[in-house]
Every structure is written in C-alpha cells, then in structure tokens.
C-alpha cells in the first residue's frame, strides 16, 4: 500500500500498533495454554511414599497419552463422537443445503421471513437450547412425548437413544445458520449461468444439483470444516442432559472426559493429554478436509 520509503517506515510502527493487541492476547490465551498443555501432558503426579507431604511431578514421557488411550472411557468417547458426527453432519448440512436451495428456487415466498425464522434457534445459547429441549424430552412435561404416546409410540428420548436426541438439539441450533451461509453463496451466483442452463432445458432440480451445488462448493467445504471441529468439541448439550439422562455418563464425549479428569480426579496430566489429542485430531481432520476441498 505505502509506496515511498518514508511511508514504509511510518507504516511499520502502525502495523505493530494495530496487530500487537491481538497477537499478544492470542499468545496469552491460545498459544501459551496449548504449550502448557503439551508440557503438562509429559508429567505425572506421584504422591510421596507415605501418602502425605504432597505430590510430586515426575517426567513420564508419553505415559499419559498411553494410559489415556488405554482408558475405555476415553475410547468410548470417540465412538460416541463418531456416531454423533455420522448422524449429525449429513442431516444438518444436508438439511441446510436443501433449505437454501428451496429458498433460492424462485418458487419460495416470504424469503426474508423464512430466513429469519430458520435462523432464530442459532441465537439461543447452546446451554439454553439444551435446557429447552431437555424439557421437551421429559415425560410428564413434554408435549412431544405426550403426542407420541397418544399415537401409540413410546419413545424414551433420554434413555439408550439419547444420542439422537442430542443430534436433534444440534440440528435445531445449526441448520438455520448454515442455511443462511449457503443462501448468501447461492445469491452470489451470476444469474446468466443459471439462465443458460435453463435455456438448455435443465429443470429446476437438475439446475440445483448439477449447477448450483458445485458452484457453492467453497461454502460447503468451509461449513463442513467448522461443523467437524464443532462436533469434536461436543460438550454443552450432553452436559445439560447428563443430570436427567441415564444414557449419558460423565465421560460421554472426549471433552467431558478431559473435564472429568481435570476437575473430578485432579489428574491434570491426563486431562492435558486428552485435550492435546483432541486438538491434534481437529488439526488432522482440518488438513484432510481442506486438501480434499482444494482438489478439482
């Protein structure tokens, strides 16, 4: 931007001034904790022989990682996340894409109203969303449970099938949000492209699937990336339901596991190892999704 040498000199101070607040804070609340977690994960608390006189930190290499990985509770957490993601991601993103295409189809009326109404749940904080749905799952209070029972269906939302209930809360929260992103991307498609396709005799469904969807591929990849990262962190909704659901244990997801290790057992080394592995998995998955997205 600045072309003269003097301008460049002046600019240097400005750059520092404008970017330093962010990067100083970033270093303090993102980089430092990650580094500290890495450090902690390599140590183990060992109580001195007599059991009193306090514990001692002993370097233990990868022991925390191995014992975390060997813990069935931790591994179960990943299976829960995998099942959750397999159900949630296609349902939510597919639903968001379908709704965006419907809104963009030209047949939709009251577009602004629909967009706003569908977006509303996203404004509700995750914990509150969890609380609202918790009551909608609770026999005795829930009109949904009552209506299903009247129809002869006895569905226990909070028992063995609690996973689908948690998925439903997340679908409710995030579909509208992603729909608005897709809709914005769809609106940015040059109209001539679509007109040309229609002239060639393609029907609206064909235009939607063969032309519109490939053209908003970038938005789909980005939302997929954020949805995967979000799924890995699953915590708020199941924690809220934990108090009344038999289907949820305190180590149900990897994040809940890390929380329980840190604050239930005071095993910070193990909690750190669990956190690091979760962050590493997020990094690996992000890498593959981005690489896959950049292909073609």
């Amino acid at each position: 931007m600045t072309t003269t040498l003097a301008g460049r000199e002046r600019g240097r101070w400005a750059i520092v001034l404008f970017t330093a607040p962010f990067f100083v804070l970033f270093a303090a609340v993102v980089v430092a904790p990650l580094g500290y977690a890495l450090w902690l994960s390599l140590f183990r608390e060992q109580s001195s022989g007599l059991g009193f006189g306090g514990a001692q930190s002993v370097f233990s290499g990868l022991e925390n990682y191995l014992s975390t990985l060997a813990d069935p509770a931790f591994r179960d957490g990943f299976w829960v996340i995998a099942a959750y993601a397999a159900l949630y991601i296609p349902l939510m993103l597919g639903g968001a894409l379908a709704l965006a295409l419907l809104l963009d189809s030209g047949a939709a009326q009251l577009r602004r109203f629909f967009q706003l109404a569908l977006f509303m749940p996203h404004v509700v904080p995750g914990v509150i969303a969890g609380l609202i749905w918790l009551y909608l799952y609770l026999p005795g209070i829930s009109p949904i449970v009552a209506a299903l029972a009247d129809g002869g269906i006895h569905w226990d939302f909070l028992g063995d099938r609690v996973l689908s209930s948690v998925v439903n809360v997340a679908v409710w929260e995030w579909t509208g949000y992603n729909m608005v992103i897709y809709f914005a991307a769809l609106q940015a498609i040059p109209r001539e492209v679509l007109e040309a396709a229609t002239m060639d005799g393609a029907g609206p469904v064909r235009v939607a699937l063969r032309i519109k969807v490939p053209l908003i591929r970038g938005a789909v990849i980005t939302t997929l990336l954020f949805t995967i990262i979000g799924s890995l962190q699953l915590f708020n909704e199941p924690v809220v339901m934990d108090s009344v659901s038999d289907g949820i244990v305190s180590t149900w997801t990897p994040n809940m596991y890390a929380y329980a290790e840190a604050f239930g057992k005071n095993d910070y080394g193990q909690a750190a190892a669990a956190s690091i592995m979760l962050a590493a998995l997020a990094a690996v998955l992000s890498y593959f999704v981005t690489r896959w997205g950049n292909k073609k």
Partner: protein
Amino acid sequence: MSRGAVNVLLLIATVYMLLPLTWLLFAATKSLPDLYATPGFAFADLNLGANLSAVAEEGDGVFFRWYLNSLLYAGLGAALGGLISVACGYAFDKYDWRGKEKLFGVVLLGVLVPTTATAVPLYLLASKIDLVNTFWAVFIPSLVHPFSVYLARVLSSGYVPGEVLEAARSDGAGEVRTFASVALPMLTPAYVTIFLFQFTGIWNNFFLPLVMLSDQRLFPLSLGLYSWNTQVTAFPEYSTLVITGSLLSVVPLLLVFVLLQRFWRAGMTAGSVK
C-alpha cells in the same frame, strides 16, 4: 417441484425451528403443577408474574447479577475485542510486511483450535497468577476471536478504498490518525457485524466460565441457569425458575438479531464467499 411444495417444506422447517421457542413462551406462564397437568401448547392460569418474581427473588436476586455479568462479559468483551480484531484485520488488509501471509495463516489456524482444548490449561495458568474465579478469567480470553480478524480483513478490503487512505496521508495525517478518523468510520458496519458475532460467541460460552468460576456471583446467565437446572431432580420447583429464566435470557438476543439483521447477514455473506 411445484411452488406449493417448496413453500410447504419451508413452512414445516419453520415450525420445527419455532416450536421449542413457542413452547418456552407457554411454559413460562405456568405454575409448576400446571406445567405437568396442562397441554404444552395451551395457556393455563396465568402465572407469569409469580414466576418472574420467583426468578427475581431466588438467591437474593442473583439472576439479575448473572444477567449483568453476561452483559458485561459479552458487551464489553465484544466492544473491546471487536476493536482489537478490526485494527488487526485492517493492518492485514492495508499494509504489507515480510511474513504477512504466514502470520495470517497463524490466525486461521487459531480459528481451528478447539476452544475447549485450551480451557483446562488456561485454568491452570490462571490459577498460577491468582486469576481463577475472577471477572478477568472469563473476560480476557473472550477478547480473542481469530475469526473476527479474518472477517475484518475481508470487510476492510470491501469497505475502505485504498485511495481514500492515500488522500488522508497526503493531507499529512499520520497512520493512526488515518485509521481512527478515516478508516474506522467507514468500517462501522464491519465493526457492528464483528461485534455481533463476538457478542453471541461470548454470550453462548459455557465451558470457560464453568472451568474458571466457582463464585455464583460471577456466573454468566448460561452457567447460572445450568446450576439451577442441576437442582431440579432434588427440588422440582427449580423447573419454573429454569424455564422462566431461559425465556428472559433469550428474548433480548432474539430482538437484537431481528433489529440488526442487515449486519449479521453481511458478516455471513462475507464469510461464505471466500
């Protein structure tokens, strides 16, 4: 697909999205016995006043304390954090320096770091400097929002033409002056957008306050309502408190979003076009 079918499908989705909120509205007007005894989507004896005063009285009015806390964490945090992000994004957009794109890569990586992965180590670090269980323990981490920096860079290139800055510079304005009096006014819509995103992010944050805070009087709303809900199994009367409290905490947010539609739409459009 016919015009009718398209609208019917959209309508079904809308009903699904609005049903829980409608139920909340009905439920907040009911007494505890009516909550169990009457249909979910029908009014019973109007008990909203009593529910509201129960919420207000519980724990010496701690609910309003939570409300104020949430407003402070989210309002101040988004105002200050938004400014930090806008300044940083502006610098990324309008200046060149060595290693700029690498540094921006770090910001993008920051977007992908699960915030919950840093919360437990952050707690341990905070406990070393005696910040645990203070306002700052939740407030300071809330200021950092890498996605806002990304958004600010995108929006800055759209809202602030380089020529305007050159004109200000040739008039003798320094870099900071140029930013504060020329660029920042042009970035106001971007700032509002970023403010909104950061505000909801902080308002929704649960894990960090849960980890950091033990003093009830420092809780934000989400943590406070959660703590009430953990009592429900033992004391069913907390149900009405949780339900009415949830309604009270959701309504202002819904209003803000309806009124400021233009801004979050702008942010999401910018986020999607990348």
